[in-house]
């Protein structure tokens, strides 16, 4: 199959992290089927997928813009908005639900005044609900930033998140 050498689009800006994205795309020969892998790389590098990123990736992989957007919004792991400084993921898997994950989520919702998937106005904390972390043996489970905590109580949760809210870091 003959390949047409379109001029490769250039990265949205000078940010060095685009090199990581470029190397992922190069590794897969800029094939359209590498869209999801590339989006993973972008999200890992930048924390989220913005329009510029989607436009760049779509153009580089020869994927229609609407398809790129369709894929990015189909998979809940991808986010189109930047996350807060801290993220708190409450597991809502069955085991956690049976052990009161809803109460944990409720406590955070009222404390942070946001719904799952949103970030507080000051950009400090993002609240997320996960389908299942696979830590069912430790239900109910919560992930504070990258760290998994098991058998979490509403009090412990509130205390931990309150710490984030008060710090200026």
């Amino acid at each position, binding site marked *: 199959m003959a390949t047409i050498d379109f001029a490769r689009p250039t990265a949205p800006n000078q940010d060095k992290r685009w090199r990581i994205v470029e190397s992922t795309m190069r590794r897969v020969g800029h094939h359209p089927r590498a869209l999801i892998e590339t989006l993973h790389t972008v999200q890992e590098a930048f924390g989220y997928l913005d329009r510029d990123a*989607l436009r760049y990736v779509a153009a580089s992989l020869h994927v*229609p*813009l*609407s*398809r*790129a*957007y*369709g894929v990015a*919004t*189909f998979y809940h792991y991808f986010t189109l908005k930047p996350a807060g400084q801290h993220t708190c993921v409450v597991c809502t898997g069955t085991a956690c639900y049976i052990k009161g994950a809803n109460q944990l989520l409720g406590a955070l919702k009222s404390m942070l005044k946001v719904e799952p998937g949103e970030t507080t106005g000051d950009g400090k904390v993002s609240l997320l609900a996960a389908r299942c972390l696979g830590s069912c043996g430790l239900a109910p489970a919560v992930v504070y930033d990258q760290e998994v905590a098991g058998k979490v109580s509403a009090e412990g949760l509130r205390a931990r998140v309150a710490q984030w809210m008060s710090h200026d870091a």
Partner: protein
Amino acid sequence: MTVAAGIKTLKIDDRDFSARAQETILDVARQNGIFIPSLCELKGLSEVGACRLCLVEIKGSNRLFPACVTPVEEGMEVTTNSERLQRYRRSILELLFTERNHVCSVCVSNGHCEMQTLAQKLEITHVRFPYRYPKAEVDASHQRFVVDHNRCILCSRCVRVCDEIEGAHTWDLKGRGIHVRVITDLDEPWGSSETCTGCGKCVHVCPTGALFEKGRSVAEMMKRRQFLPYLTLMREDRE
């Protein structure tokens, strides 16, 4: 393979038919004037088997089969219109009516909408399930066309015709589940789309009033689809 070897005989609603091996149950039914409802299927576009209205029964199986993607087989006995099928079809269409805001009386497609016509044909006099009344946008940013999400049934014909026939792939779907919407480019206003060629094919394959031309009154917004078989034929000849 000789032509004779590729011929299958089958029964549809107790009548005998012969068909070419590559044909689907829906093809054979259509050729012979047997009505099977469908909304996502449109001759000339790829099939997706998504609307589930063309489900039929095949003797020997408890499962139901979408006629649009089920190829004929030798000795197949198909039932297209049992009491059970009618019940399921009505329920599916009723669900579709609850999903968005289908207000027929003030729709540009009133009188020539495939969904409205089908509802009458399936003898739906009212919808038993509660309506959702979602908030849906109307995008009139395009110079000539409008997309009204209130009336979209997500059949994806616009997506397919734009991709498969026009080759622009301006349309696609975003989100999932009940939140799916048709989008142009990066979910941007249609009018500012960089990829739309303005050909209007999407408008004319749309089964409802979700896509329409500006400035057309109800009686005028007839969808014209002659281009589809024509383009398909012309392309086949070229290949």
